């Protein structure tokens, strides 16, 4: 993947396509951790993870709305949209990879990196770098972060330290282009917007994006719910940012208003790190015996997930009413999730969905 500073509408589209890919890329790791928690245990951890996962789905939808508003075409069916894990995040954060793994301290530590505040907000960490092609020189094997790259000669690749800074760049790009083009920037068909009438009970307001103000409001919501671009634990609405929600699980205590970062003083969070299906990290179809019912079940999940993304894509491409059906289908995916995670592999680990989405 390669992103360069937004100078035209095509560049803005690329960033927003990357934003959708980025929001989505967080969901399989969050769901793997969430559903690896044995049903009926770890209630508090379950609810923290679930709320974050649902908000990522909201962010994904908002990114799709912004892309539609500026005349882009959301498409979640392109090969590479779903990364193969372990994966780098599509905003060019190259210092860590994301695993799909069981609920564990290691998983939560990765989630903290995903949701980390902007540089400067966390003392002692590396600063943002916008280096030339650094991602290609770091020696890591890159998986599936296949945003269709279009290299712009002479421009420097952007690599963001945090998701918040990535969205800041999008917001600046929107403002720059709006100053040049005026409201012609928002040339998308408003009928493609997924509005609150198609959304319910899911981590705050879904809003239609039709102009600069609503686009900025959508970006603000994403940034504040996630990591924030400041070091605030709580946002304007008093909601705690994802980073600090996860940190509560490691520190074993809830934050309350007035707390300093890293020192929550609320009541204890009870976490049972052992009440978890020991799912294989970054499982692949090839890990399951050929011809086995488990392999069929895992392939069925991948097909069902591909169908789900196709339905969502149709909803974004002009049939917003399909959104309701797509969301309903997620409940069935959850059932398939549990069926797979309850299968022991015989080596002490359990199976897990692999997210190897078939194409064609």
């Amino acid at each position: 993947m390669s992103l360069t500073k937004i100078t035209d509408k095509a560049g803005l589209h690329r960033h927003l396509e990357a934003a959708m890919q980025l929001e989505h890329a967080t969901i399989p790791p969050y769901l793997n951790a969430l559903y690896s928690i044995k049903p009926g245990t770890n209630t508090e951890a379950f609810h923290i993870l679930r709320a974050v996962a649902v908000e990522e789905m909201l962010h994904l939808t908002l990114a799709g709305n912004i892309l539609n508003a500026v005349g882009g075409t959301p498409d979640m069916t392109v090969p590479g949209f779903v990364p193969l894990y372990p994966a780098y995040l599509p905003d060019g954060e190259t210092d860590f990879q994301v695993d799909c793994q069981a609920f564990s301290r290691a998983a939560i530590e990765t989630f903290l990196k995903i949701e980390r505040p902007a540089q400067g907000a966390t003392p002692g960490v590396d600063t943002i770098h916008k280096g030339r092609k650094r991602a290609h020189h770091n020696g890591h094997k890159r998986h599936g972060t296949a945003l269709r790259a279009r290299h712009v000669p002479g421009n420097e690749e952007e690599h963001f330290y945090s998701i918040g800074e990535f969205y800041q760049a999008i917001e600046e790009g929107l403002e720059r282009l709006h100053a040049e083009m005026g409201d012609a920037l928002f040339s998308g068909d408003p009928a493609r917007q997924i509005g609150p009438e198609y959304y319910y009970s899911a981590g705050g307001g879904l809003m239609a994006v039709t102009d600069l103000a609503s686009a900025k409001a959508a970006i603000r919501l994403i940034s504040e719910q996630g990591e924030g671009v400041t070091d605030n634990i709580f946002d304007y609405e008093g909601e705690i940012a994802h980073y600090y929600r996860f940190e509560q699980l490691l520190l074993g205590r809830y934050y309350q208003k007035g707390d300093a970062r890293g020192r929550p003083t609320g009541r204890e969070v009870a976490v049972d790190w052992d009440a978890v299906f020991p799912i294989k990290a970054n499982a692949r179809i090839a890990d399951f015996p050929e011809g086995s019912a488990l392999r069929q079940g895992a392939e069925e999940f991948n097909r069902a997930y591909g169908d789900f993304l196709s339905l969502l894509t149709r909803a974004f491409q002009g049939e917003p009413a399909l959104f309701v059906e797509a969301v309903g289908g997620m409940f069935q995916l959850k059932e398939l999730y549990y069926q797979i995670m309850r299968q022991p592999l015989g080596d002490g680990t359990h199976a897990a969905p692999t997210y190897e989405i078939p194409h064609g």
Partner: protein
Amino acid sequence: MADMLDGFLALSAALTGFTGHRLRGTGQAEAYLATATGIVGEGVMRDLLLAADEARASAGGDAAKHEAELRRLIMSDDRLGPVARNIIRMWYVGSWYQLPKPWREAHGQSPRDHDHVVSPISYTEGLLWPAIGANPAGAKPAGYGMWAMPPRIAPG
């Protein structure tokens, strides 16, 4: 008892018509094996699993013959048949029902042999729901507005 789990899953697959994968996917296999074994005793359970092995072996992959052998060796057996029927009911509705009186008189009365729900999720994981293509009443919600669409239940 862990060594009996594979045999129990094979027996259960033959008795219920669902695959071992689908049965394991309910998360209830260990609980059902423990419940049944705790009530009828390990001797009866081992004989039941041996009879299931024998039925499978003598059928040699012939489905019709397999069913006939299950009926001959297990379902029509006074000692094993009622236990097998109870195991089927447990998988389908998630509850253990007290064994019939003749069985209790002939083969002992476990204090645990009374009607009870096996686990907090055994009802919602019952096979009756996928069998009839519905979600369990009051559980596994399908999402807002989905009542206007046909249920989408993988039969397994």
